């Protein structure tokens, strides 16, 4: 066989499709957070005096990781394309999972527990938190559905691994 069919190679690289999506999703949502909420709307503050030490560290690590993940995720995407193994539905599942997961972590752990900054400095910030985290949960649910629907059937995976050894 000269060229692997797309459906077979994408099954082989099913995990890479998922991880490429997750990494890009984390990077994308972090970028939107920075561009829209920090720079354009100026709702988020660069630094909040009530930030805990662990909040500062968590924010620094996630900021650095998301910066790397955006580029790394897109190179993985290019890698899947050149291997003719891109599974776009599964990739989008990963994107939504990564984006929703990071938004939920940001909304619950970083904003509320570590107090790195609030969504907006207004009185009824609770409503903002509610909308923020609800969107995060919905994004995760849609991502999970897409990932579940593109799961390899076990039997097929076994057959393939024999074929390409």
């Amino acid at each position, binding site marked *: 066989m000269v060229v692997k069919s797309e459906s077979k190679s994408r099954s082989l690289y099913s995990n890479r499709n998922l991880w490429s999506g997750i990494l890009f999703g984390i990077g994308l949502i972090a970028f939107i957070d920075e561009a829209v909420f920090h720079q354009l709307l100026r709702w988020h503050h660069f630094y909040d005096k009530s930030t805990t030490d662990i909040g500062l560290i968590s*924010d620094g690590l996630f900021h*650095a990781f998301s*910066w790397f993940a955006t580029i790394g995720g897109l*190179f993985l995407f290019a890698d899947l394309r050149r291997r003719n193994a891109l599974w776009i539905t599964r990739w989008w599942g990963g994107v939504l999972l990564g984006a929703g997961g990071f938004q939920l972590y940001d909304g619950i752990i970083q904003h509320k527990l570590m107090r790195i900054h609030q969504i907006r400095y207004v009185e009824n910030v609770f409503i903002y938190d509610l909308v923020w985290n609800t969107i995060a949960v919905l994004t995760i649910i849609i991502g999970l559905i897409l990932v579940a629907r593109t799961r390899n059937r076990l039997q097929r995976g076994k057959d393939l691994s024999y074929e390409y050894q």
Partner: protein
Amino acid sequence: MNISKYFDHAAETYNFTAIGINTQLFLALPFMLALVMYILAVILSNRRHKPWPMYCIVYWIFGVFFATIAVAGPLANRATVDFTVHMFGHLFLGMLAPLLMALAAPMTLMLRTLSVPSARRLSRVLRSWPLRMFSHPVLASVLNIGGLWLLYTTNLYSLMHENILLYLIVHIHVFLAGYSFTVSMIYIDPIPHRTPFLYRAIVFVVALAGHGILAKYIYAHPPKGVPVDQAQLGGLIMYYGGDMIDIVIIFILCLHWFKATRPQIRLAESQ
């Protein structure tokens, strides 16, 4: 003179002294020498080999330029009294100049210029344990980011402006640590003891995080002798400026990974 009056005033305010012309020349001279030697090496080696790429020469010239304006001239003068200018100088000397100079592949140029026996001796030096150690991602990151933490969270920053020797050591360290950090992450020149992509990626993320955390720390806790508004602006410049330069390193690191993992055409499959 107006300028000296300005510096007297500044020295009064911050208890800093302006950096003398000798110190500036001493720091700028090695970079000038590096520029001359690079151009000479290009001319000499082009006689025997195919022409050295123009873009490498451009990288080197801009690298030397940014390093030089950070240690000598108006920017370096202003940096002693204005923390935001200091931070631009730091970005130039510790990040942008090392990146541009690493992209110019100076070791490759040197190896092709030297005679074979000298080139062999040079590559033995490159493989020696001290250079191996300093080009290791973890040690390079600790020296680079750890050095910055030491500079901005202790009295070192204000002491540096009172003691010429400390000033020299800090500036030489910032450049050398920045250079060894860059070459430990992206392999443009031949480098002994290569480490895997994932390993470098993880160390890089931790180092970048250390840089960002320090930038926010400076924003919240100004170093001794630095006014709050300058510390805040300086922290922002460090945070976003660092991101801008590091995105180039991340891109090159990922591009090298992308090329190295190119799918191989298997003979068995094509038959």
